[in-house]
């Protein structure tokens, strides 16, 4: 994580933001490389939007530093912002303009040279499926189309960093699929950060995930790493002639056994020791009639709930 790493497009260190006495984000570190899609997950009020506002220069952090493509966002905001495309929670649309006019204006504001402007706008409209509505007033478009205009506005100047705050909110299932495909495509060349609380979305599009809770990052790993987070720590076992539970509990590495019916059990592992092999040996030796042994499936949802559960309790 060398800050001078050229592939590192977003690098935030020790980011904190207080509103009065309320700490919205605390000591957050965040790195995204080119060609990477980072999912920012968290329950409502976890600090996702605050983080994104800070990363786009819309909110000054109380402490910490942000570098966009190795340019300090706080020292030279104009230079750094040229590399950012941002879709806030509410798309910043001028309802009285038509889609083409609006995107031209955005391209101008982002200093796209005059000669490239028309091409850039046409491309953005194509990518977001807006070609057919280019002449329509934004105010007359449906919510789904307005959301697409919001995304087009974030990518029209081909920024290195694209930050999307809940991009699929308000879209119908088909539009969500299109949008995911678009974000994946964007993720090939650019860096993308997206926030959401739709968990399958993160599994479907992100390379990495950071789960935020009460302003801090409680989990940060690749999607694969996250799936491993709980998989392998739990198996479901079915035995035709099961022993008493106490006997299962004596096997080294078994932390807890939970009966799931007459002949199947969920076995949690203690950290560091994997008792799967010992379980199979024992079952064969003692003729328990083992007929099924599966690693319990954990979804992102399990990880998420596990990490942010105290929110529910409190």
């Amino acid at each position: 994580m060398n800050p001078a790493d050229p592939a590192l497009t977003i690098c935030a260190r020790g980011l904190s933001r207080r509103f009065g006495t309320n700490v919205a984000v605390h000591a957050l570190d965040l790195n995204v490389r080119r060609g990477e899609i980072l999912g920012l997950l968290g329950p409502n009020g976890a600090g996702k939007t605050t983080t994104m506002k800070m990363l786009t220069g819309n909110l000054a952090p109380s402490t910490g530093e942000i570098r966009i493509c190795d340019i300090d966002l706080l020292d030279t905001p104009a230079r750094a912002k040229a590399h950012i495309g941002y879709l806030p929670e509410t798309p910043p649309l001028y309802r009285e303009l038509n889609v083409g006019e609006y995107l031209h204006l955005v391209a101008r504001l982002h200093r796209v040279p005059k000669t490239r402007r028309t091409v850039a706008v046409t491309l953005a409209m194509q990518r977001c499926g807006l070609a057919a509505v280019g002449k329509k007033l934004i105010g007359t478009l449906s919510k789904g189309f307005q959301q697409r205009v919001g995304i087009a506005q974030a990518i029209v100047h081909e920024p290195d960093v694209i930050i999307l705050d809940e991009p699929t909110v308000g879209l119908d299932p088909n539009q969500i699929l299109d949008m995911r495909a678009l974000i994946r495509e964007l993720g090939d060349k650019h860096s993308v950060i997206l926030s959401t609380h739709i968990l399958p979305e993160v599994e479907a599009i992100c390379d990495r995930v950071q789960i935020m809770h009460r302003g801090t990052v409680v989990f940060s790993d690749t999607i694969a790493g996250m799936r491993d987070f709980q998989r392998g720590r739990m198996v479901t076992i079915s035995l035709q002639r099961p022993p008493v539970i106490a006997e299962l509990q004596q096997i080294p590495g078994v932390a807890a056994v939970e009966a799931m019916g007459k002949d199947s059990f969920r076995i949690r592992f203690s950290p560091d020791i994997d008792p799967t092999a010992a379980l199979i040996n024992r079952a064969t030796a003692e003729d328990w009639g083992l007929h099924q042994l599966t690693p319990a499936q954990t979804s992102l949802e399990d990880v998420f709930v596990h990490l942010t559960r105290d929110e529910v309790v409190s």
Partner: protein
Amino acid sequence: MILTIAIKEFRALFASPLAWLVLAAVQLILGYGFLKRLDDFLQIQSQLAQLASPPGVTELVAAPTYAMAAAVFLFAVPLLAMRMIAEERRNQTLTLLFSAPISMTEIVIGKFAGLMAFLLIIVLLVLAMPLTLAASTQLDFGLLGTLTLALLLLAAGFAAVSLYASSLTAQPIAAALIAFGLLMAMLLMGETAGDSLRERGWQIPASFAQVFSPLRNFEPLGRGILDTYAIACPLLLIAGFLLLAIRHLDGQRLRG
């Protein structure tokens, strides 16, 4: 970049019925006022001819029309400026400007320039009325020039104050009321404050008070006197309120 924002604001003004209504209302009021003055002038023209150095048509018709325009601006400018920042805040479109590689100064000056372009149209329409008389009579173009300058400076001062008011809130109507209140306070207090300070011998505060006296600065130019202090004061007022607006918007990033 300032130009981009100015053009956007200028077009946005014309996209709303408000701007057209204001243009129409201002033209109606001023047109009536101008014709009334002209009518009065024609009635007393024969009596004026007997004076040693009679006041001309520019003094008697054009100058009062300009004074009337100044009074109309007191209402029109807060209405025209109220949406510029407040509505962008309410619709959350300010984010677009804040996220673009533009400084807060460029945003505010761009918006100010867009508004001034619109106000310039009104000023030119005001100027057009006395110019129609040029065919049939001798006009005092020097006086017309200073009158136009005075009206522009006054409009720009009102615009800067109104833009600042618009940066304070998310409600356009509230912005218009704040602007109107500020301008009224300046007109009422600004006119007397300078005199009462001067009476006590406080020359410097009295001169400073003149910055906040738009009508007092309008007056010498309105009489055709090119008073540099009366030109500098509105410029200071404009710079001051634009700076306040920039600071206020900048502070929004800090406050959240």
